[in-house]
Each structure stands twice: as structure tokens, then as C-alpha cells.
């Protein structure tokens, strides 16, 4: 009987040597004349165990990791093909606590299937959502998505159903679905994982969005920093076209939907939806003033749904199991599940999809296992470069849009970056301003000039030049940026700066040693 071995082709696994492991395994299998099929799956998201090799057994999949090429021979000697015991054995994959604690709806197939096998996708429940959607009227699909309570997973948290309804209700001979896959926030990689590990779920979600709103053309705008995701997405689109999931008659229906991947060119601000649209149109990524909303006048001035990868990839399960099924997970006005990315200085970094409501402390200390360096946790940045730094004193904050807002923070794209006690928070505040200065599109003054002035203030504080006065000006500057900027880049840069200042004021006072030296 042919044994099946899984070795991820996800960028994270590749960055840790998965390709070399796959080559070594192929060579050893050929040398021993074994009958083995190797599947290059996505990642399960347990990055401290990557490259994680799995084998199919009668009891389920058994995992080994992290595997080095030099481990391959001993793994086969230990009976890898039967799930034999080895020092790298992790037991049944599904029973690894980090995975067993999760609720995987959006990531149900990621790491399990062959990302480029449409048969595999179908066998694991794929395309059921689209089949259901094809039996409904557009307004009924929109109602189902609204019912689910799904909110934009890119960070803004705007209800997806309402956005879709606006586009559905706006008459136009041409409408677009644009997927924002410009995942530039440090600490986030959920979009990349879905595109590399389960690309068909994104395609299915976009086709459903097209049918629901009357759009016939979709674009996935992603980053040049994601070459593997681009390659896999393009291959998946070609497969979906050939199978009739995309094209003039979607699944033999009267609906048409075409899809194309577009690649950005290294501008962070293009993750902002209107800058993204400008970039897609072939212009500089300059933010547009709203209104008009993209739902009324979006890409090429046409009504456009612009949603994050995770929002769109959550639609198939909603249309498969129903809006109420999805809505019943979560807390308050944050419904469903959220794929949280645990990153930075953390022992167990990876993707953790769970219902809203888990606390920050559980994520960092229990699930993440504390810092990788073994030192105490000092700060956690939630929501990317524009997210607030939280001290351990706020670790009881539940993962929920409103709860984070109440603590002057934001969930953003749900990436959390852990820092140990060696972090200098004044330096982090300065970095936030510097990053904003480099990436500002330049259209509005608070962002373009405020960020540069912010860097100068941070430098003067570090140099001990009238720190109290500088801090007052810095707080005032942040207020101006927050309320005066056109988009979230200038508007949210104050979050990391002010949270660093408020929660870690000791880092903004020059140390006595530094004063003495001057």
C-alpha cells in the first residue's frame, strides 16, 4: 500500500528548511525502494515545530517536528511510514494541544489538504458554500452574510454584509470584487497562509461575493514580498478556470466571474483600501478622501467590494453551514472566529483560530508559552505597526473589537507581537513614527509632516533635552495626527506611540546615567 507523507510548502516551513527535508526524504525513499506519495501541504501553523512532517496512519495523521534533513534516515528507521516512535514524534497531529484548543472554521483545511488539488478541496467540504449560493437570490446571500455577523478582518471591523448590500443596491453595468491581500502588518501572516495553504477557499469566497453583488471581475492585490503565495494563487486560479469554477459559466450557471492576481511594489500604504484601488488603476498609492465610498465609486469609478483575504475566505463556511452557525461563535458584537497570529519573541508562535473572547494573557502566556528567550514578557503589540502596545497589566482584555477599543487599542488584522523585558519602548515609539514617515503617501499634512516631527521629538527625549516639554508636544502631535489624518496610517500611528508613553512612561525619562554623562 502506498504511504502518504505530508511536507509543507508554506513560506514559513520553507524558511526553516522544508525544501531540503523534502529532497532528503525523496532521496532516502528512492534508495530504500519504498512506496510513498509525498504531498506538499500548507502549514498547520505551528511554526516552532516546522518543518513538520506528517504521515497518514489508520488512527489519523501522526506528526514529527521540527525535522532536519539529517533526521530523515533515523525517522525511516524508526518506522515513520507506520507512525513509529521517534524523539521528534509529536503523536497524532489533531491531539497536539495548540491545535486541539482551536476552532478552525476559516482554516479548516489549511495544512490538511494539497493546496492545488481541487478534488481534495471538494473532499474536505469545499465548494458547498458556492453550490448553496447558486441556489439563492443575491439579496438572500447578502442576508446570510449579514446574519453571520462577519466583520472586516483586515482591521476596520466593518460589517461585511452591509458593504455587500451597498454594492448590490448600486446599479452599474460593471462591478468589481477586490481582495485586499496586501498583508503588510508586522506580526501577521494569516492571509499568506490561506493563499499558500488553501487558495481555493479564497477563490470560492470571491466568486460568492461576485454572485451576491453582481460583480463579474475580481482582483487579488497582494505583495511582492509574498512570491510563494503569488505562485500558488496563480496556479489555483488556472485550475479553477479549467474546472469551470471560474469563467463565463461558474459551476455551469449563468454567472460569470474572472479572477486575476495583481502584485504591489513595496508600498505599505497600499494596504489602505483606497490607496490600493489607486495602485490597481496604475497610479501612485495615494489615499482617496471618502466619500465616495468604494462601494459606490471604487475601482475605475465602479461599485466595488473590497474585503480582506480572511473576510472573503470565511464566506464559504458561512454559506455552507449558515449565517447562524457562524454567528453562534464569539462574544458581544464580535461574532465567529478570528485567526490570531502569535509572533515575535514567543515560544510557541503560529496561527491560532478561535472564537472571539479569548484573553490576551491566555494567548501570550498559555498558548504562546511566554517568550522564546525565557525572559519576562514586557509588552505585546496587537494589530500591527499601527496597533497599541499592551503591558501584562492589561492581559485580561478579551479578544473583541470593542474591548480592545475600550483600552485604547485595536485588534487590527489580529497579529500579536511579543517583546521581552529588554525592549526599549521609546525606541519602539520612535520606530512607529519613522515607519509612518517612510510609508506616508504624502497627501495629508498631519501624517506627512507629523510623523517626521514625531521622530525628532523622540530623538530629543532620548537625548534628554527638556523631556517633559517634548512629551507634552508629542501627545499634542498624536492628537492632531489621530483626528486630522485622512487614513489609518497617520490616524493610527498614535496608538503605538501613546500606548508606549502611557504604559511605559519610565522609558521616556532619561536615565540618570545618561544625564550624568552629558
Amino acid at each position, binding site marked *: 500500500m502506498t504511504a502518504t507523507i505530508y511536507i509543507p510548502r508554506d*513560506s514559513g516551513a520553507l524558511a*526553516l528548511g522544508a525544501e531540503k527535508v523534502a529532497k532528503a526524504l525523496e532521496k532516502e525513499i528512492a534508495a530504500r525502494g519504498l512506496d510513498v506519495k509525498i504531498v506538499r501541504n500548507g502549514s498547520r501553523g505551528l511554526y516552532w515545530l516546522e518543518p513538520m512532517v506528517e504521515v497518514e496512519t489508520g488512527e489519523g495523521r501522526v506528526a514529527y517536528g521540527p525535522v532536519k534533513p539529517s533526521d530523515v534516515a533515523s525517522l525511516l528507521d524508526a518506522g515513520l511510514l507506520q507512525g513509529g516512535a521517534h524523539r521528534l514524534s509529536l503523536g497524532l497531529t489533531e491531539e497536539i494541544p495548540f491545535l486541539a484548543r482551536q476552532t478552525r472554521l476559516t482554516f479548516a483545511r489549511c495544512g490538511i489538504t494539497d493546496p492545488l488539488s481541487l478534488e481534495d478541496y471538494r473532499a474536505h467540504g469545499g465548494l458547498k458554500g458556492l453550490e448553496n449560493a447558486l441556489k439563492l437570490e443575491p439579496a438572500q446571500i447578502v442576508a446570510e452574510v449579514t446574519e453571520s455577523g462577519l466583520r472586516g478582518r483586515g482591521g476596520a471591523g466593518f460589517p461585511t454584509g452591509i458593504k455587500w448590500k451597498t454594492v448590490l443596491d448600486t446599479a452599474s453595468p460593471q462591478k468589481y470584487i477586490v481582495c485586499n491581500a496586501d498583508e503588510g502588518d*508586522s506580526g501577521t*501572516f494569516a492571509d499568506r497562509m490561506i493563499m499558500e495553504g488553501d487558495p481555493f477557499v479564497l477563490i470560492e469566497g470571491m466568486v460568492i461575493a461576485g454572485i451576491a453583488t453582481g460583480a463579474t471581475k475580481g482582483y487579488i492585490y497582494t505583495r*511582492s514580498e509574498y512570491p510563494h503565495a503569488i505562485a500558488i494563487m496563480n496556479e489555483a486560479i488556472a485550475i479553477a478556470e479549467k474546472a469551470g469554477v471560474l469563467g463565463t459559466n461558474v459551476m455551469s450557471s449563468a454567472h460569470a466571474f474572472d479572477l486575476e492576481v495583481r502584485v504591489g511594489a*513595496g508600498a505599505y500604504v497600499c494596504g489602505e483600501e483606497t490607496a490600493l484601488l489607486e495602485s490597481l488603476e496604475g497610479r501612485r498609492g495615494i489615499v482617496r478622501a471618502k466619500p465616495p465610498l468604494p462601494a459606490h465609486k471604487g475601482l475605475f469609478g465602479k461599485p466595488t467590494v473590497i474585503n480582506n483575504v480572511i473576510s472573503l475566505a470565511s464566506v464559504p463556511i458561512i454559506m455552507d453551514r449558515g449565517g447562524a452557525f457562524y454567528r453562534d461563535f464569539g462574544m458581544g458584537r464580535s461574532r465567529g472566529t478570528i485567526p490570531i497570529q502569535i*509572533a515575535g519573541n514567543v515560544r510557541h*508562535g503560529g496561527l491560532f483560530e478561535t472564537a472571539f473572547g479569548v484573553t490576551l494573557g491566555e494567548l501570550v502566556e498559555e498558548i504562546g508559552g511566554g517568550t522564546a528567550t525565557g525572559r519576562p514578557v514586557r509588552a505585546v503589540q496587537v494589530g500591527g505597526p499601527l496597533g497599541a502596545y499592551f503591558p501584562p497589566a492589561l492581559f485580561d482584555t478579551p479578544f473583541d473589537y470593542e474591548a480592545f477599543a475600550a483600552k485604547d487599542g485595536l485588534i487590527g488584522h489580529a497579529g500579536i*507581537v511579543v517583546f521581552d523585558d529588554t525592549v526599549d519602548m521609546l525606541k519602539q515609539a520612535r520606530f512607529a513614527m519613522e515607519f509612518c514617515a517612510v510609508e506616508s503617501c504624502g497627501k495629508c499634512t498631519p501624517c506627512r509632516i507629523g510623523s517626521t516631527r514625531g521622530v525628532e521629538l523622540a530623538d530629543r527625549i532620548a537625548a534628554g533635552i527638556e523631556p517633559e516639554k517634548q512629551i507634552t508636544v508629542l501627545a499634542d502631535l498624536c492628537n492632531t495626527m489621530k483626528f486630522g489624518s485622512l487614513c489609518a496610517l497617520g490616524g493610527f500611528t498614535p496608538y503605538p506611540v501613546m500606548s508606549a508613553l502611557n504604559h511605559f512612561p519610565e522609558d521616556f525619562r532619561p536615565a540618570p546615567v545618561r544625564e550624568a554623562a552629558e
Partner: protein
Amino acid sequence: MEMQTASTDIAARAIEIIDQLKSAEGPLLPILHGLQEEFGYVPPETLPLVANALNISRAEVHGVFTFYHDYRDHPAGRHVLKICRAEACQSMGGDRLAERASELLGVNWHETSADGAVTLEPVYCLGLCACAPAAMLDGEVIGRLDDEQLQEIATEVRL
């Protein structure tokens, strides 16, 4: 004379690329990507050709070309090393490693070494934040970068 031939060749090839891509919706970024993929940079003499083909001003093309960090106006080194400078990598000592890379290679950020071996560039997030610090060497992703690997890279790029 030789220069002129090279320049004519570039123009001819650029026009082919522009013609292939210009009918797409919003073709400017795909064209600039296409030119950079072909030549390793976007030769400045091709920008007027792009403007002409798309019927937009040269200023508009120049504005787009200079807005995006990815596009180069001169060739890179034989190897390109990108090191992530963003927060998740900072939390794992990325700043120190980045300085070390600059020392080992003898170049500053955005610069190419005098022997043309390597260009060093900062990058803000490769999506490898759970295996930080991260880097990319000629499109190959590298996680948990350390001093030893950096040393290997510094030797390798000079071979």
C-alpha cells in the same frame, strides 16, 4: 557605438513587453514589473516609451515609478539580500543582526557592494513573523536568521 546598440536593444525589448501588457486594466504596475523582471531594473530610457504607449504624461509615469520602493533605476548586485526590519523581527534581535549584515557585507542599506556582489535592502515584513528574524536572499526565504547563517551568506555571495 556599442552603448547605442545596447540602448536600441533595450528599447526594442521594452516595446515588446509594453505591447504584451498594455491592454490589461490598469496596466502601469504590471508593465513596470515586467520591465524590471526583464532587465533587473527599469531602464530610465524606457519610461517615455511607457508614457507614449499608455497615452499618459512622462511625469505621471515618473511619479508612479518613484513612488514604489520595489522599482530600481539601476541594476542591483548579483545577489540581493533583504532583511526584515519590522517589529516582530526587532523583538528577536533583528536590529543587531541587521547591523551585523551591513558590517559583514561592507555596505549600507540600499547600497550595492563595490565588487557588485550584493545589494542590501531593508524589507518591512515577509510574513515570517513566527520564525523571526527573517530575511530573503534572491527570493529564497530564510527564518530564524542568526550570526552563523549571516556569515555563510556573506561568504556565499562573494563566490
